[in-house]
């Protein structure tokens, strides 16, 4: 039984911080990119963001993250607009009030581990398209699923499963993503 009002400032401030950092780096930072980048932050960089991702054909996803984005948009910290082009999707951008909730979670954001992780994340994945991020997030989920279940993950097994979940990607695209993630040591597989 909860007897305190626990405001998840950490989650709200993280979204605001990512939006601010990515504004000058990415033209593709929308709802999909947010899901996948926070998934990376939690899974690869081991930053406790408080989300619980589940796998769908559109990659790892947590609806709580959508709700949190909703709320800070309502507070005027970020703007979320639909992109009316061939690809569709959304663009999340900071507003003048983006820093207004930073102070509530400064200890978390200024912690060396979080700061370093955010820098690495933005540098490595920040400029990727939603499509590229979704392929990589799904690959990380699949590889770690093997690991979690104590099963041997070979490059062939990972590629085969990712290809089934994401049939609109070519075998080359998938293999390239697996190799790239492995070189960054973000996934492991047995040769």
């Amino acid at each position, binding site marked *: 039984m909860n*007897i305190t009002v626990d*405001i998840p400032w950490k989650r709200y401030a993280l979204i605001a911080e990512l939006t601010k950092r990515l504004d000058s780096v990415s033209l593709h930072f929308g709802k999909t990119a947010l899901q996948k980048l926070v998934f990376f932050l939690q899974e690869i960089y081991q930053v406790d963001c408080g989300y619980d991702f589940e796998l*769908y054909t*559109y990659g790892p996803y947590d609806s709580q993250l959508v709700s949190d984005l909703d709320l800070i948009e309502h507070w005027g910290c970020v703007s979320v607009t639909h992109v009316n082009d061939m*690809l569709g999707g959304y663009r999340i951008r900071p507003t003048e009030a983006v820093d207004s909730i930073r102070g509530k979670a400064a200890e978390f954001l200024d912690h060396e581990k979080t700061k370093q992780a955010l820098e690495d994340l933005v540098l490595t994945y920040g400029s990727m398209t939603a499509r590229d991020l979704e392929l990589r997030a799904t690959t990380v989920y699949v590889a770690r699923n093997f690991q979690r279940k104590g099963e041997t993950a070979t490059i062939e097994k990972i590629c085969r499963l990712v290809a089934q979940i994401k049939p609109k990607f070519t075998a080359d695209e998938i293999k390239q993503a697996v190799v790239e993630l492995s070189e960054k040591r973000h996934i492991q597989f047995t040769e």
Partner: protein
Amino acid sequence: MGKITEIRDPIHGFITLNEWERDIVNHPVFQRLRRIRQLGFTDMVYPAAMHNRFEHSLGVMQVATRMFDHIHERRGNFLKAELDFKEDELGRDRVLVRMSSLLHDLGHAPFSHAAEGLMDKDSSTEKPFKHEHYSAVIVCMLMQDVIENHPFNQKYDIKAKDISDFLNGEASLGRSLLWRSLVSGQLDADRADYLLRDSHHIGVAYGSYDLHRLIATLTVAIDPETSSAVLAVEEGGEHAAEALIIARYMMFTQVYFQRTRRAYDQHSVEAIKHLLYDHQKQSNLANKNAFPPPTCKVHVDDYLKWDDWRVFGLINEGKAGDHGSILMERKHHRAVFETPEIPSAADQELAQEIQEALGDDVGFVDCASNSWYKFDSADVPLLLRPGERDEKLTALSTCSSVVNGLKAVERTRIYVPLDKKEKARDTVANTRYEKEKSL
């Protein structure tokens, strides 16, 4: 084909089972769902809320099958040409969807979702188990024989583990992961059934929407932004999808997150916690206040002994502590403060200040985002101009100002015991006045 069993259902008319499915439904583990109420102690507010997980599970299977069949019939060529499905795989997937939707709620604790807060932590993830984890383990540990060894299964070779993987959303599902959205997603059969069923039984109209139209416009498409296969609604079904989303919002605010109903969720959790400790204090379980974790057969067998009947009996014997007495006497804690549905940062801080001012008088704090069936604003994909050369997938919120205007409900409430209500209301008024004066 064998003998077909027809079960009368208030929402879907007749639900049909083949012999294989009938054997599964007759298994004691599935029959236990007759003794798990769908909405816990909701009858304290809506007296007719007495329906159970048994009928809901049958309903989900019925809706999921209709959804699957419609998509298969209308988009069969797309599934094969674009997503590499084979016809025999689709036949097997249909059975997998039926079984998984039938068994998805096997692992519910007494009084359904409320007691989910009493599930132990999974040491491998450091997160609490959910009822789906119990469902998946129960399928593998206790239903393997009835699932795998029925003659009807010779054609499909479905393993209990396939159903367990489906319920857990495991990556090993491969392309069949697409169908998991029929059981757990924005347009899933679970919520499609419970909105109608809960409305019907408790006597409200908030959960009504046009299920037939929704199914008739359900489709599969490729999201151009990410190249992912997604379940979507065809243009023409947009108002049916709107109605589903509005039904979710109305049912959440008027029923699932109704203030008195939520108080009884908290009281039932505390009463069960008391009973669990009493029952398990001599055990070697690490957490004696929680249900046994689904980590071995002994624990699973112990877990399944907990159902509503057992808890009612123990409450009636006066063994469930102070909260058991509150349930018997209907003297629930009262909400003395609540934020707006979509609170500002200042509203959230005021809630925190009031909770601090109330000190030990706080009975419990409830937050919409921590409740079950929470209303989030996740969108529904909408397929414009289906079948045309300029077919395009977009989000329903871009075409619907109603959906675009609905935001996730993030209300927080503070409750105090009944005898502290008047004093607490004074404290709330004073704190609010002081806060407004300081601005």
